[in-house]
């Protein structure tokens, strides 16, 4: 919470200091993307799974505020399914099967620079990582943890109309502590929602 307060105070002081009425246009954009994810793991996802890669999918939302310059700031969130596995475990007298699911929700501060339709930026902050395990002989189990991650994104958009743009976007996210790096090639859909 404290970092958020610091950021808000800094932005407020920057706004107050810089604001001159009338001659700068401020803009708020919403960007939505949907894409597959290719995930790479530092360690095996489970003892029974030797591979260190998986395919998932995700959607993301980004709200950016442009105060008339190259740099814009905003918030980044979404929902990513990182891995889903059916895991069989052999026991002496039986075999158990588990369904396991790992997902992440980014709750990040986004910063980007835009010029001529090209946007390059990064999101920093926590991911809310969640796991669900079903099957075996037990009731399902859920776990979650906040972990710090970083998201890099780059996109190019074409105007479809006055306020709507569309284009490809590439995103790379890193959950360093958990040892996960994901690549998300996607299509982004951007809307100017506010201009003042």
């Amino acid at each position, binding site marked *: 919470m404290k970092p958020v307060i610091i950021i808000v105070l800094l932005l407020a002081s920057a706004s107050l200091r810089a604001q001159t009425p009338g001659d700068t246009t401020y803009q708020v954009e919403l960007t939505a993307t949907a894409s597959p994810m290719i995930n790479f793991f530092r360690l095996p996802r489970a003892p029974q799974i030797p591979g260190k890669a998986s395919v998932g999918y995700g959607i993301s939302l980004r709200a950016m505020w442009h105060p008339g310059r190259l740099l814009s700031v905003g918030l980044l969130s979404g929902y990513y399914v990182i891995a889903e596995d059916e895991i069989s475990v052999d026991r002496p007298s039986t075999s*158990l099967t588990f369904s396991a699911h790992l997902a992440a929700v980014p709750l990040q501060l986004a910063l980007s620079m835009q010029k001529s339709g090209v946007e390059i930026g990064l999101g920093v902050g926590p991911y809310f990582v969640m796991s669900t395990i079903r099957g075996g002989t037990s009731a399902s*189990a859920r*776990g979650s*943890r906040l972990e710090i991650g970083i998201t890099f994104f780059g996109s190019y958009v074409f105007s479809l109309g006055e306020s709507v743009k569309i284009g490809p976007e590439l995103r790379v996210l890193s959950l360093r502590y958990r040892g996960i790096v994901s690549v998300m090639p996607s299509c982004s859909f951007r809307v100017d929602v506010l201009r003042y």
Partner: protein
Amino acid sequence: MKRICVVIVLCAGVGSCDPRLPSGPDIYVDFESIDAPTAPLSETSKSLMNGVYEVVQGGSEFGNPVVGKWTGNRWGLYSQHDAVYAISAGGSSGDSIKLRGYIRYVRSGSGIRVKLTISSTDGAPEVIAGVPPPSLRIHGTTENGIKIELRRVREIASSPFEILAHRGGGRNSDRLGISENSIPMIRYAALLGATGVEVDVKRTRDNKLILFHDDSFSPRTVQGIYLLGKVENFDLEHIRSLGRLIHGEQIPTLSEALTAVVDETDLSLVWLDIKDPLAVPQVVQIQKEIMAYASTRGRDSLSILLGIPSEEVLNAYTPFRDSSDALLELDVETALSLPRCRVWAPAWTRNITPGDVAAMRAANKRVFTWTVDLRESIVSYMERIDGILSNYPTLVTGIHDSRE
């Protein structure tokens, strides 16, 4: 422009100030293949090699002196200067003694291989024959060319002292290549010079007891991306099926770990660190079962102590105060009031007065402290109390055994 170029070129000189970068912790040494071409030494021969050694060469690695002693079939060298130790295997080969192994620098997680030899002119024939040699010298080299020469100067200090390895062998287990709170680490603890281990007990969702320190699973401690968050959210079945400890070991139950202590080690004490008061009744039950089993295996000297770190755990222990051996971390008065409290173990930063120690000893109880890693503190406490829990049991061993 010229100035800039000169500056940039000289900046490259900064790169020459690179310190030695640590190598990885995984130094695989096939001890069995080292043993194979040599003949094992007798227990008498081994006892002749045990002792305090002057470091004639190699002081940069070990300091001076070092302690050398056999643990089973492994020869250990323990520095009293820093957390540095060496483990070797081998035996007699003709009229010399040949040992091969590694030196580990525990605080940095690095290590190097080492070869040690006692030649025929340095006392090997006498040692092999089981006769005290007139002098005993060990020569060796490390894989990066550092020469080692040790000269035995005296016996190991024999005063009883409990050296306890934290979390089975020391936290930050990536420094040793074996996970903390694991059965392989419990087996390895004696090679670190430990006489006992402290292990952490956690309760799963289905009320099973496992060895685990943290409240939550994390990439520091486990492999398996689906084990995420609090331990108490998962059943034992989930934990054992979908995860492993960070170095690949199975996460042990408390029963399995204590059985391994009885069957596979000569450790004399196990300190069960319990933070969850709801685990106490089951811990007491397992404690009784294992002590009975130990007795059938001739391990009557083994102590398994239920650790009491808080008032909550103390309250949960109270119904068992007459039947379960315990170790108390709270105040000295409470420790004296509990009939089966065998050890009083306050944190090392608390003021342990000579009067408190005397009172405990008068009540036939021992005094430990935890977790002591600084050399000065270890030296200070060693003279005053009966045992130390440390992340660096090799350092405690080196200091204790090398005293005159």
